[in-house]
């Protein structure tokens, strides 16, 4: 299993080098593919291709208010992930208008990175050991955890311990729904999207909605008179930027860029403009991993 995965990654990185090679010097130089990929790696992979390029393709979520959301009426994107993408683009010398946002759902983030459908994934993408076996993740640029969204007038639920026997909505097959069911004895109510869950909460068909606090804060910011986030996070999620596996130069660049954004206040500004609107103050700056 591990061997075949490694072989797959190797095969993908080889084709990736071949792709770069076509762009850079294939027309001038007829060296056989072995020598060509060696020279391509010297031109520094994704980073070399992206610096000063005319566009950057970023995979984001379209359905998470405050994090990554597309307004169905205007087609305009907003959210913390979108602001992070703009910060990265700026550091690459790419105009924020030249970022092409592609929708990624949770299940196709790794395939999109592997197939080079996107350059980066910035889509409430938690860093995990499992994922770091197939893609690289730089960060975290935001730390959150599973929390609870309840109706504003409901004072009976203040944390996960109050969930026993309550109907709790989350997305079918998510880790969040497993945790409340197995650890806190909630009755799971699976739905296809978080938006549907929030609607069921407002309808009073379920008692709570659970997923990452960042996503719930976005919904609370949208309808503060109807729903609110309660309790402390009861898991740890660290959002990172996903990109091609093993691209060390890209990794260093992203870590430096995020650190600069923490230091010059543009990270805090991005938070204030998006998730901060639900009334919470900016969290402390996360500690970046030194590897990807």
């Amino acid at each position, binding site marked *: *299993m591990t061997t075949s995965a490694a072989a797959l990654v190797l095969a993908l990185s080889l084709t990736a080098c071949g792709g770069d090679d076509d762009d850079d010097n294939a027309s001038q130089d007829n060296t056989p593919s072995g020598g060509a990929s060696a020279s391509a790696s010297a031109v520094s992979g994704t980073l070399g291709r992206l610096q000063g390029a005319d566009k950057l393709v970023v995979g984001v979520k379209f359905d998470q208010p405050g994090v990554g959301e597309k307004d169905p009426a205007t087609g305009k994107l907003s959210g913390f992930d979108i602001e992070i993408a703009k910060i990265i683009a700026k550091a690459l010398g790419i105009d924020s208008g030249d970022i092409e946002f592609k929708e990624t759902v949770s299940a196709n983030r790794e395939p999109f990175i592997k197939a080079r459908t996107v350059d980066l994934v910035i889509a409430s993408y938690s860093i995990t050991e*499992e994922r770091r076996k197939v893609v690289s993740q730089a960060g975290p640029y935001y730390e959150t955890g599973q929390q609870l969204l309840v109706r504003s007038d409901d004072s009976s639920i203040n944390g996960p311990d109050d969930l026993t026997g309550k*109907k709790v*909505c989350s997305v*079918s*097959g*998510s*880790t969040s*729904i*497993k945790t409340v069911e197995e650890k806190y004895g909630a009755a*799971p*109510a*699976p*739905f*296809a999207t978080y938006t*549907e869950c929030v*609607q*069921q909460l407002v*309808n*009073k*068909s*379920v008692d709570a909605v659970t997923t990452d606090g960042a996503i719930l804060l976005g919904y609370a910011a949208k309808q503060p008179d109807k729903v609110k986030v309660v309790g402390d996070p009861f898991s740890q999620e660290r959002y990172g930027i996903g990109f091609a596996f093993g691209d060390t130069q890209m990794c260093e660049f992203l870590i430096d860029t995020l650190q600069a954004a923490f230091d010059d206040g543009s990270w805090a500004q991005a938070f204030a403009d998006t998730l901060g609107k639900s009334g919470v103050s900016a969290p402390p700056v996360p500690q970046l991993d030194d590897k990807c």
Partner: protein
Amino acid sequence: MNVLADNAGEILEGFWKTIQLFVLSGVASLVLGTVLASMRVSPIPVLRGAAAVFVHVARNTPLVLIFIIFVFGFPTVGIQFSFFTFAVLALTAYTSAFICEAVRSGINAVSAGQAEAARALGMTFRQNLTLIVLPQATRSAIPPITNILIALVRNTAVAEAFGVTEASYVMSGLLRDHADSLYWIFFGIAGGYMLIVFVLTAFAAWLERRVAVLR
């Protein structure tokens, strides 16, 4: 293989819910479908029209939309049921429209002489339908009704996205926890659905032999 054995309890629980969904909405659909078919052949124009409108709307609306109407629409106007009840209602509304048409095709298959003879004997419409026409119609409608019920077994999986923790929900959870056993989980759950359909088909074949109309 182990993943199926290790989680057998959870899988059986999921399928128990699937079977409950199937049996409840299946029985309700057979009853409602037969009533609708009777309405469609009745001499009263209002009943005929109402049944026709229901059948056309329910049959031409995607099942997911019918679920949305029940699960999102009803609570908005203050009608609250459990997600399981909503799922049974949505599946019944959808399936009974098809059952109605299968029964109606059975009614059309009964030779006109039968109904005319009954009428000549002085039977009312109700007697004619329940004693003469429907018993014969149901027999020739068994194969199409079986098909509709097979579709219903698979349609219960839609309930996964509407708050019901049936077999497909169990599958989503197992895929999350055991990503390395993808094929075992997928074919194991698919096999469970096939088993239900197999039992149903065997029962229908037996029933068909039992009550076949000799012509």
